[in-house]
């Protein structure tokens, strides 16, 4: 089977210096790629490159499949209700027909936020907001999930819920790239590890 993301020797230059050492990424269907590295090693930048938010300064990226990206900041408008946030994403991002999309209500339920549906996102706790951000993956499912520190501010239950989401997605032949530096996902599926090295000085 062909890879859904194929990146060759990509890197990004900030201030004329490489953020990380040029890296190859080959993400296969049904595969999880765990991106590791110290703080500031460029995990976030690598994920943003893979998502297409920034363009690589060197190397090439080919994507085959729809992409969902959940960054540091989960992309939740604080003045909207939890339900409205998900309704917006269902319409804004749409669902890949390969996967069954949940209704916003069902997704809230799955994320354990059924009782917070009418609350403004600004009133939710950080962990709840993180769950809400991740629930986007259910209302607007995509083939490739790019998740930047999805376990941030989640409790043990939340981490297990995310692990479940990932397992389910991988079982459907979806692909996931996760940057995580504390919690390690506990999954059934094969996990590939990619270590990001901070960039050396670029002469």
């Amino acid at each position, binding site marked *: 089977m062909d890879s859904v993301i194929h990146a060759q020797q990509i890197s990004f230059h*900030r201030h004329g210096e490489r953020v990380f050492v040029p890296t190859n990424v080959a993400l296969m269907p049904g595969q999880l790629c765990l991106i590791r590295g110290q703080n500031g090693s460029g995990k976030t930048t690598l994920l*943003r490159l893979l*998502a*297409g*938010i*920034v363009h690589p300064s060197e190397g090439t990226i080919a994507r085959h499949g*729809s*992409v*969902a*990206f959940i*960054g*540091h*900041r*989960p*992309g*939740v*408008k*604080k*003045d*909207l209700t939890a339900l*409205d946030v998900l309704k*917006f994403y*269902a*319409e*804004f*991002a*749409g*669902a*890949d*027909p390969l996967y069954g*999309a949940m209704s916003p209500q069902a997704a809230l339920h799955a994320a354990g936020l059924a009782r917070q549906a009418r609350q403004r996102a600004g009133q939710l706790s950080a962990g709840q907001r993180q769950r809400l951000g991740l629930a986007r993956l259910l209302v*607007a499912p*995509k083939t490739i999930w790019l998740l930047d520190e999805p376990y941030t501010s989640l409790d043990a239950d939340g981490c297990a819920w995310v692990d479940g989401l990932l397992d389910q997605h991988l079982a459907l032949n979806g692909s996931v790239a996760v940057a995580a530096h504390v919690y390690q996902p506990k999954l059934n599926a094969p996990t590939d590890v990619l270590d990001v090295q901070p960039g050396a000085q670029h002469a």
Partner: protein
Amino acid sequence: MTKRHPLRALLRQDLQRAWQHGGQSLLPLIFLFAVIAMIPLGLGPGPNLLAMIAPGMIWVAALLASLLALEGVFRPDLDDGTLEQWWVDDQPVLALICIRLGSHWLISALPIIVATPIAGEMLYLPAEALGLLMLTLLIGTPILSLIGALAAALTIQARQGSALLGLLIFPLTVPVLIFATGAVSAHLDGLTARPYVLLLISLFVLAATLVPLAIKKALQLNLE
């Protein structure tokens, strides 16, 4: 709901949020009236003088009012991580920018245009100039929104961005101000306002084609 409608979704969300903010969305309008009310207090209530300067004053007040809402055009989206979603999964970025500009104009500028008759009445604006003044506002305020949004996109991460906004915007909006008020005074002098209105329209076309590209570039630089 499998098909995506990013433009519709964004427009709906923007309008919904403006509606929820209620009074806050009307701040530019309130500010406009505050400025209008200051003018007779500063210049004296003489109807002749006020009538003469009314078109220009309403335009300057509209320009100042348009500054107020700019903080909210892109900055909150960058801060909460929704802006980067515009670049994920081949979304039509340029069209999204245009939608955002459109909703911004609807929320901040349209109320001002609708309220112009009242402002005109307060400054003894000659009745025959009102229609033309509203027309120039209708064509000109979108240009202000475009230039303002560009300045906002450039200053998102700047220190004291809001203080800079005015300095960046005013020189660029000089032609709009000149042609718009020129149209009205030509009309009041019994001349044709046509060339001014046509120039204003071509300014709008030029701005509408070029500025969104510059905004896209500026936002992209912010995401790097």
